[in-house]
């Protein structure tokens, strides 16, 4: 049966290959769906092959755990609403981190047991090879467990925040020092463990400290910053998996983990950059940050009736729709697409303009619009659409605020100063759909709403666009 281990190794190799090819295919919307299916086959192959590993005990327990875990996750994943995707990603990511930490824990416990079982006879203790970890393996295993545990508790906090279970920020004086102390303590215990001074008590202390640190460092971060944090923890989990893969001598884990670690790091940077902030600012910026003072803006907001707004767009040549976080809150994406289709039928040229940080996670709006069935070639990036606003008749802003705020360009004191925005103000008319005078994520006034060519259509996103649809249908009759 010498061919069995080779066959299993070949399966792992194929799995790693399929992961990479799958991620590669995700770089284009046309092939992305196929990409995740490929990666899925890789995963299936790797898991099935693992069952045949020689010398594996507890097969029944393993199968049971796999079945329970898969069914539960499959069931929730299939049922959850499209808008809850960010927190589900956080949850599943946390589970991965937890699994990595568990692997590290099992290895450490086994290591301690092997030390206890075998009293040092004379100089060199004769420990059986199987239980004995090399120093590098031990160190990487501890490091992986630390990172995994932090990612676990941190991701769970992120999940709870996005789910709305933990609305208040949790801030107290000296928080930064406490967190730093926690981290230092966890690292110190980790170093002790890694240098061979393992004991049951130390292991418990290590995991408690690591979990606590993940909790405490994520709690003060605002819910809206969560996507960046989730992406960071995604990279963390990847690294943790790679390290534990090294301990287990499993190359597929090393490769998949490292690829995700690198990819997640890059994604985190891209997100933070799109929000015009540094990663450090996202993670620690909340401590004692004074809220920007509300700037008074001259003029008044000029409301408009749904009927007038509908007529303006019905007889326009070009309309650009700018969705924002409010669209997600109102779940208005289906109505908006219905409205856009009616306009298109009338011969109006309709485009959707998406700001890179519209909504609460990158690509948030793309996902929502895709859910409603908006074809992606009607959707334009900020850089592509900005020059076009000058020849646009009506820009319809739905639940967006910060991403169309001209203060980002003019007011150096504003918290979003320097962030590139969508130049909706350049178009002939701007119609803004929002519920009232609520501010956006940055909590500041928006000069656009007071501009001469802007009209406000107050109301919940879904209801307001529903009115527009009805008005348009009346026009058609």
């Amino acid at each position, binding site marked *: 049966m010498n061919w069995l281990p080779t066959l299993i190794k070949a399966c792992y190799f194929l*799995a790693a290959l399929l992961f990479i090819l799958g*991620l590669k295919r995700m*770089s284009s*919307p*046309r092939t992305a769906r196929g990409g*995740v299916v490929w990666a*899925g086959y890789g*995963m299936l192959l790797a*898991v099935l092959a*693992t*069952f045949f590993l020689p*010398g594996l*005990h*507890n097969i029944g327990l*393993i199968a049971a755990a*796999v079945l*329970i875990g*898969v069914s539960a996750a*499959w069931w929730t*994943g299939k049922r959850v609403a499209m808008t809850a*995707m960010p927190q589900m*990603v956080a*949850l*599943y*990511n946390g589970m*991965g981190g937890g*699994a*990595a930490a*568990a*692997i590290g824990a*099992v*290895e450490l416990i*086994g290591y301690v047991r092997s030390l206890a079982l075998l009293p040092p006879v004379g100089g060199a203790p004769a420990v059986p090879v199987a239980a004995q970890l090399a120093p590098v393996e031990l160190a990487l295993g501890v490091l992986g467990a630390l990172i995994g545990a932090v990612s676990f508790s941190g991701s769970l906090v992120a999940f709870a925040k996005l789910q709305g279970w933990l609305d208040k920020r949790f801030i107290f004086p000296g928080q930064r020092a406490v967190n730093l102390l926690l981290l230092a303590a966890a690292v110190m215990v980790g170093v002790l463990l890694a240098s061979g001074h393992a004991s049951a008590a130390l292991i418990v202390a290590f995991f408690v400290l690591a979990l606590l640190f993940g909790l405490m460092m994520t709690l003060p971060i605002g819910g809206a910053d969560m996507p960046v944090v989730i992406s960071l923890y*995604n990279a963390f*989990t990847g690294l943790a*998996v*790679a390290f534990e893969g*090294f301990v287990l*001598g*499993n190359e597929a884990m*090393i490769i998949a*983990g*490292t690829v995700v*670690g*690198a*990819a997640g*790091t890059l*994604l985190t940077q*891209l*997100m933070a950059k799109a929000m015009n902030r540094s990663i450090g600012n996202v993670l620690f910026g909340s401590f004692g940050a004074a809220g920007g003072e509300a700037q008074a803006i001259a003029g008044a907001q000029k409301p408009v009736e749904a009927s007038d707004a509908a007529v303006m767009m019905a007889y326009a040549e070009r309309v650009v729709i700018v969705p924002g976080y409010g669209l997600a809150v109102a779940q208005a994406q289906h109505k908006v697409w219905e409205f856009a289709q009616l306009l298109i039928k009338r011969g109006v040229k309709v485009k959707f303009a998406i700001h*890179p940080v519209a909504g609460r*996670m*990158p*690509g948030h709006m793309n*996902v929502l619009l895709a859910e409603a069935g908006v*074809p*992606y*070639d009607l*959707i334009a*990036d900020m850089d592509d659409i900005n020059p076009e606003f000058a020849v646009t008749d009506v820009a319809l802003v739905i639940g967006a605020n910060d991403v169309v705020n001209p203060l980002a360009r003019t007011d150096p004191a504003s918290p979003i100063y320097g962030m590139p925005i969508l130049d909706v103000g350049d178009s002939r008319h701007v119609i803004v759909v929002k519920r009232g005078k609520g501010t956006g994520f940055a909590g500041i006034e928006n000069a656009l709403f007071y501009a001469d060519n802007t009209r406000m259509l107050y109301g919940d996103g879904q209801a307001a666009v529903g009115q527009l649809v009805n008005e348009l249908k009346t026009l058609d009759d």
Partner: protein
Amino acid sequence: MIDGFLALYIFMLAAFTGYEIIARVPVILHTPLMSGSNFVHGIVLVGAMIALGHAHTPFEVAVGFVGVLLGAGNAAGGYVVTERMLEMFKSSKPDAGKETK
């Protein structure tokens, strides 16, 4: 188990591969991509299975069991969520639309 330098080489090359592949993904796909890479590290399930398979004391078995549960959740959940998101990306051109279906 693996020679240190070989692991280092694999680590370096995998990091480059991940970085280069992701650097080319358009913003529109960032959310599904985050979810997709989240799925890929679900391979931790294999590691958890191995750990549970070599666990001896009841406590180790319990921890290993939780690890496999969590790993399976990561893998299955990550897949379902990613697949659901990507399924929705369609082009208005009919043929391209068919291809993604």
